[in-house]
């Protein structure tokens, strides 16, 4: 972003990578896949790089409002400094915080989740899928993340994107507004589970595996970690892959 600003360019959209997308080895692959799609269709995007900071979501949900305000106000300063209007992110937690919580702090942007942008690109024909379909005959079950689905009501965009794959799509018993959490939200990602009979990600992975999928599709880097771990715990990691939607698209699109 800094380089673009220095040369007087203004990008169509800012890609908010997020902490997971920047630092988590598995989530970095999602970041690369999504960046590759945007590059392939010639979308002029920028990133903040080291000027990006955590949105503050986990701090706020843990109860640490001071820390949230510090992180958020810092980010708003940066975003406003570059005159950012539109943001896309591959993380539903960043998406929710940027979209729903920054306005009260004075940060107003048009924020979309990457599945929504992918739907737009597919609908407008900018992303076209290979004939024959890389995923033909593959059974894909989609997991609604809480922060994209139930909390922000985005159920259709990711499903439309998956429909473009020409695969065999399955739904879990608990889906859409009834979708079960992967167990990572509310800053649970950073702590051990409270005592109980089972981990939440195991419960959800079992439910996904009931559908006998080849692929579990997710839209959130935290769901990715949770469900991958769950699938591993059930020793199914060789048969069932967990992918983000952007990874599925990048593998099947005409480049």
């Amino acid at each position, binding site marked *: 972003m800094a380089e673009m600003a220095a040369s007087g360019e203004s990008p169509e959209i800012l890609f908010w*990578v997020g*902490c*997971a*997308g*920047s*630092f988590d080895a598995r989530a*970095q692959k999602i*970041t*690369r896949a999504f*960046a590759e799609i945007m590059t392939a269709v010639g979308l002029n995007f920028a*990133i903040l*790089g*080291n000027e*990006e*900071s*955590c949105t*503050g979501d*986990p*701090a*706020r*949900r*843990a*109860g640490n*409002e*001071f*820390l949230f*305000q*510090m*992180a958020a*106000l810092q980010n708003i*300063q940066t975003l406003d400094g570059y005159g950012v209007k539109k943001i896309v992110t591959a993380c539903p937690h960043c998406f*929710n*915080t940027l979209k*729903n*919580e920054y306005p*009260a702090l004075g940060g107003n942007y048009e924020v979309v989740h990457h599945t929504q942008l992918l739907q737009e690109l597919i609908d407008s024909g900018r992303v076209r899928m290979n004939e024959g379909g890389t995923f033909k005959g593959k059974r894909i079950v989609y997991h609604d993340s*809480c922060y994209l689905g*139930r*909390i*922000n009501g985005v159920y259709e965009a990711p499903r439309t994107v998956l429909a473009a794959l020409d695969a065999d799509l399955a739904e879990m018993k608990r889906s859409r*507004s*009834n979708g*079960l*959490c992967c*167990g990572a*939200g*509310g*800053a649970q990602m*950073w*702590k051990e*589970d*409270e*005592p*109980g*009979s*089972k*981990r*939440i990600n195991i*419960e*959800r992975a079992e439910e996904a595996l009931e559908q006998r999928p080849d692929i579990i599709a997710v839209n959130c880097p935290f769901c990715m970690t949770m469900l991958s771990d769950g699938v591993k715990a059930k020793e199914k990691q060789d048969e069932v892959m967990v992918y983000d939607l952007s990874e599925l698209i990048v593998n099947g699109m005409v480049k």
Partner: protein
Amino acid sequence: MIQQILFVLVAAFALGYAWLSFMRIRRNILLGQDEKIGGDTGQRWRNVLLVAFGQQKMFKRWIPAVFHFFIYAAFLLTQIELIEIFIDGAAGRHRFFRPALGGFYTFLISFIEVLSVLALAATIIFLIRRNILRIARFHKPEMKGWPFKDANIILYLEFALIACIFIMNSADMALHDNEYGFAVSRFLSPVWSGASEATLHAAERFGWWGHILVVFAFLNYLPFSKHLHIVLAFPNTWYAGLKPRGEMENMPAIMNEVKSMMGLSATEDAGAGMDEIPEFGANDVTGLSWKNLLDAYSCTECGRCTSVCPANLTGKKLSPRKILMDIRDRAEEIGRNLATGEKSFAKDQEKPLGRDNYQDGKSLFDYITREEIHACTTCNACVEACPVLINPLDPILKLRRYEILTESAGPADWLPMFNSIENGGAAWSMNIDREHWINE
């Protein structure tokens, strides 16, 4: 005449006592902090009409929804008959509406009778679901003891209400040579064949008095019961939050403090509120908002929230329903103590006892453990599940805020995350650049 006097006295006592009880609940709800509830009036009406009147959210689970609807519809329409009972009782009339309404009266009472039969069936099915099928959500730990009895008492009262209606109507029909032609009672009145007029009259009076006395008992039982939802569902859906679900309530005091810390424009008196010992979040019902307390009093303990809570489903202690029950129990406790007027409950003995001048050495944390609030994933499944738009998540987050901001406590696991956000701007401390992914 004696009956009239008796009726007026009983009615005055029952309504008067109920009024006092409802005022007590109003006072308890107002123990909470002010919360301005604004937003689109049209959307509020839609919520009241669809969710409260229309029972929209009940139909996520259609079996209980259908049976609940029978009881609900019968309850609503019986109010018409109740108006007549009041007029008859006070004025010493018999079926006051009948001469004026004629055939429509027969239709109306018949309609209520049919609904009452459906409600009776629903009541029996609900008793079976609770006591014989033992549906899991009715038997969680927080339902042990009084809450379980409470639910059954309500169902027995409904049973009594409906039984009395049919005793009254069928005896009355037999007394009047079956000329009324009510849809259900016409099949019941033959039971009375051979009974003397005095017996029929006594049976009719028994049904009439039985019904109205159960109504009065019910009315006075409500404020002590989870069943209060039949009243509070309406205001609760009206006042339900309209902001995006994902938006946690902003804390302007902290925002302004941080702004001035960062040298950003903040209002001049931003730090003014910070001179006192800062207390953020809530550790008691007096720190929650009145809407959180209205939520708690609106809860009918159906347990839909708990049955979809990922933490509860995997054996954790957290149960959103228990959070609400605890809030209500604590509000009741404080309300009771304040009502005694005892000086020992005052923080400052010089000042009058009140919401802001109260201490009893306890807090909401004596009801709700840390383990419970730490287990929440903020997934909003409980918020989505509630048929009367209660938000169980909001008080959980306020308790978390108290723990972190006021007590500087909380799960130790979170400290590294807090530290890396504060020092490195990232949720994890990593030795790589944010652009690292580009070159992999």
